């Protein structure tokens, strides 16, 4: 493996930015954000430079490593703090730093009036550094450090305005649910070390062939739990909706483009584990399919624009996990969809941000309407993103999502039909709720009262949105041209086995487009043509009530975990006081009690003492009598 000493700068720049901004405190308020954006851009430049170098090298010597220092070495457990840059991680690095820098620029004006802007940029840089460490780590343990670092950064960013109690609870909820996922990752590392003796990706890859399938399945399931925790997949998805408590750029960066995709990266990075454990792989696909439908259904009922986009993110990541669960064939398309999703979802979130900016932080779509005339640029960029996500042909979403649906259908047998079917159904529902968002926000008649004065956002905000919109248009075409991206990632994965062509690609695309058309039509009928009142109607189907309350995910979590947890805690506290402490105090009480009861026998009368002596003598004689019997 070729060593290259430039990798560390990728992480060092944003890390330096974060640490310096936090330590300098108030003094860095005036120029703090500029430094942060510059450092993020610098890191992007290093990324580009590394890409150009990597393209220059032949396929075998593309992956590059850099050993910083030996982190932990105890007996046979030795882990070096070293970085690995190969085709997979370079695509992630560019996505993270590219979208990250755009969001930095966007935040400069979005957070202009916030007193703690410096702290916000410090957290953003900390996030980017942690995410880069996650994707550049060469062993599961290094990945784990980045993994929890990202969890910490998201905790800080979600709870940025933590003077509001609700936001503080949301950040705590996010961190705790991530921690449950991280528990899965630590199990995975333990299993890897216990059964394979190594935790580095290359080491596990070598030993994967020899290892027993049971170990590999266990490892795969644990990695899946980790991915589910971080990427807000079913069953650990309840925190994503509340994560919208953070400022919108945070939602764009973390909860659309980068952090939530870490789960997909982990599964694709450990492709050798899942290839050796088919039923773990199937489970991944199933989880992807369930979340895909779950997120889409929630998306249809959400009135808060950010929550709707969050639900759509959950569903799109369901697609990626589904893709990753389809084995070698699906890995490349999952990552491709991840990148295109990074563009259009981040673009849409920034669009939502500029809409909120214009409507002074109003998030309820039912209070929007006819913003097309007041925010033309936001409307155009948001529209391009919308077209990309529902998969209209020339746009990015079409290429990546269609390929996913196609691989799902061709996965063969009943599995193919089921997974492909859910993917198609998902495409339809996605089209429905995305059109609903577009109509409610931009094209439907005005529903906001007059003291709102929607205005277009300043240049610094709409330029990144425009770039992302362009990205969401051309990225699909570029990556898919002659399967360029698939060949780019191919050397990393095993050869996909031959499988039957259930349906030719043209038919698949046709099917997908019809589903999309149906979805759009329903949405137009329901929201564009008929009158929409500004207060959410109550007499709606039972199902919509469920969807509004996130399909009861919070209620279930509270009933299953939180309340029993609280019950256990209070029970144990009572036990600790009464039983264990009581036992100790009890011994004390017993001593005092027996003392006072004995005191009563001292009556002071000579005759009672004489009686006691007599009783004693009688007892003695009785004992002798018994003994000599």
């Amino acid at each position, binding site marked *: 493996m070729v060593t290259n000493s430039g990798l560390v700068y990728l992480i060092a720049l944003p890390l330096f930015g974060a640490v310096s901004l936090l330590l300098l405190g108030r003094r860095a308020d005036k120029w703090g954000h500029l430094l942060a954006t510059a450092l993020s851009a610098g890191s992007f430049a290093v990324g580009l430079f590394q890409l150009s170098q990597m393209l220059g090298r032949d396929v075998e010597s593309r992956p590059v490593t850099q050993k910083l220092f030996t982190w932990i070495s105890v007996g046979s457990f030795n882990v070096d703090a070293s970085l690995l840059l190969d085709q997979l991680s370079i695509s992630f690095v560019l996505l993270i730093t590219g979208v990250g820098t755009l969001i930095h620029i966007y935040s400069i004006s979005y957070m202009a009036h916030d007193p703690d802007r410096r702290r916000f940029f410090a957290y953003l840089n900390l996030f980017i550094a942690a995410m880069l460490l996650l994707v550049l780590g060469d062993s599961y343990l290094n990945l784990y450090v980045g993994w929890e670092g990202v969890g910490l950064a998201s905790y800080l960013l979600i709870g940025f305005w933590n003077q509001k109690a609700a936001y503080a609870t949301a950040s705590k909820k996010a961190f705790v649910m991530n921690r449950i996922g991280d528990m899965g990752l630590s199990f995975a590392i333990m299993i890897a070390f216990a059964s394979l003796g190594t935790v580095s990706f290359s080491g596990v890859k070598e030993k994967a062939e020899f290892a027993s399938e049971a170990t590999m399945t266990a490892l795969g399931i644990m990695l899946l739990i980790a991915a589910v925790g971080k990427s807000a997949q079913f069953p650990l998805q309840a925190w994503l909706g509340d994560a919208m408590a953070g400022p919108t750029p945070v939602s764009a960066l973390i909860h659309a483009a980068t952090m939530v995709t870490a789960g997909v990266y982990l599964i694709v990075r450990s492709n050798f584990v899942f290839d050796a454990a088919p039923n773990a792989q199937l489970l991944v696909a199933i989880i992807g399919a369930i979340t895909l439908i779950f997120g889409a259904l929630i998306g249809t009922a959400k009135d808060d624009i950010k929550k709707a986009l969050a639900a759509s993110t959950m569903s799109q990541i369901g697609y990626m996990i589904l893709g990753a669960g389809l084995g070698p064939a699906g890995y490349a398309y999952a990552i491709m969809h991840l990148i295109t999703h990074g563009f259009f979802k981040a673009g849409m979130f920034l669009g939502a941000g500029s809409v909120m900016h214009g409507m002074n932080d109003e998030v309820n779509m039912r209070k929007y309407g006819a913003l097309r005339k007041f925010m033309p640029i936001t409307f155009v960029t948001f529209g391009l993103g919308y077209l990309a996500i529902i998969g209209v042909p020339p746009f990015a979403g079409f290429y990546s999502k269609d390929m996913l649906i196609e691989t799902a259908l061709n996965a063969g047998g009943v599995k193919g039909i089921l997974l492909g079917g859910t993917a198609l159904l998902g495409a339809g529902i996605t089209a429905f709720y995305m059109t609903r968002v577009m109509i409610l926000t931009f094209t439907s008649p005005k529903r906001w009262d007059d003291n709102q004065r929607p205005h277009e956002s300043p240049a610094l905000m709409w330029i990144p949105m425009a770039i992302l919109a362009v990205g969401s248009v051309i990225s699909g075409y570029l990556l898919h041209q002659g399967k360029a991206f698939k060949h780019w990632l191919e050397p990393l994965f095993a050869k996909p086995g031959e499988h039957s062509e259930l349906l030719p690609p043209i038919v698949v695309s046709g099917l997908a487009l019809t589903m999309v058309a149906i979805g759009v039509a329903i949405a137009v009928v329901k929201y564009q043509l008929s009158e929409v009142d500004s207060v959410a109607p109550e007499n709606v189907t039972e199902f919509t009530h469920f969807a509004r309350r996130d399909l009861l995910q919070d209620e279930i979590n509270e009933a299953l975990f939180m309340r029993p947890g609280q019950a256990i805690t209070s029970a144990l506290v009572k036990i600790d006081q009464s039983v264990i402490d009581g036992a100790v105090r009890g011994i004390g009480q017993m001593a005092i009690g027996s003392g006072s009861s004995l005191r009563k026998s001292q*009556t*002071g*009368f000579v*005759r009672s003492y004489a009686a006691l002596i*007599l009783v004693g003598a009688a007892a003695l004689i009785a004992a002798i009598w018994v003994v000599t019997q």
Partner: protein
Amino acid sequence: MDINNYLYLSAILFTIGAVGVVVRRNAIVVFMCIELMLNAANLSLVTFSRINGTLDGQVVAFFTMVVAACEVVVGLAIIVTIYRSRRSASIDDASLLKR
């Protein structure tokens, strides 16, 4: 008639003495009951000396008598002093040791 009868008699007298000590309140009567117990003991000593055919029992009985005498002397002196200070010979009144 078995020689043990003397022992049974001494046991009975001893028990009566013990009950007397516990039941009666007059100090002097209590004292007499103690004397009775001592005499019962002497009787069994003499009987044992006869059983064993050695005079040791009698010598010990003799010593018991001497000790009993001393005890009576001192005991009565105490009773007198208590009586002089308290004008009552009942042993229940002397219960200052009570809690």
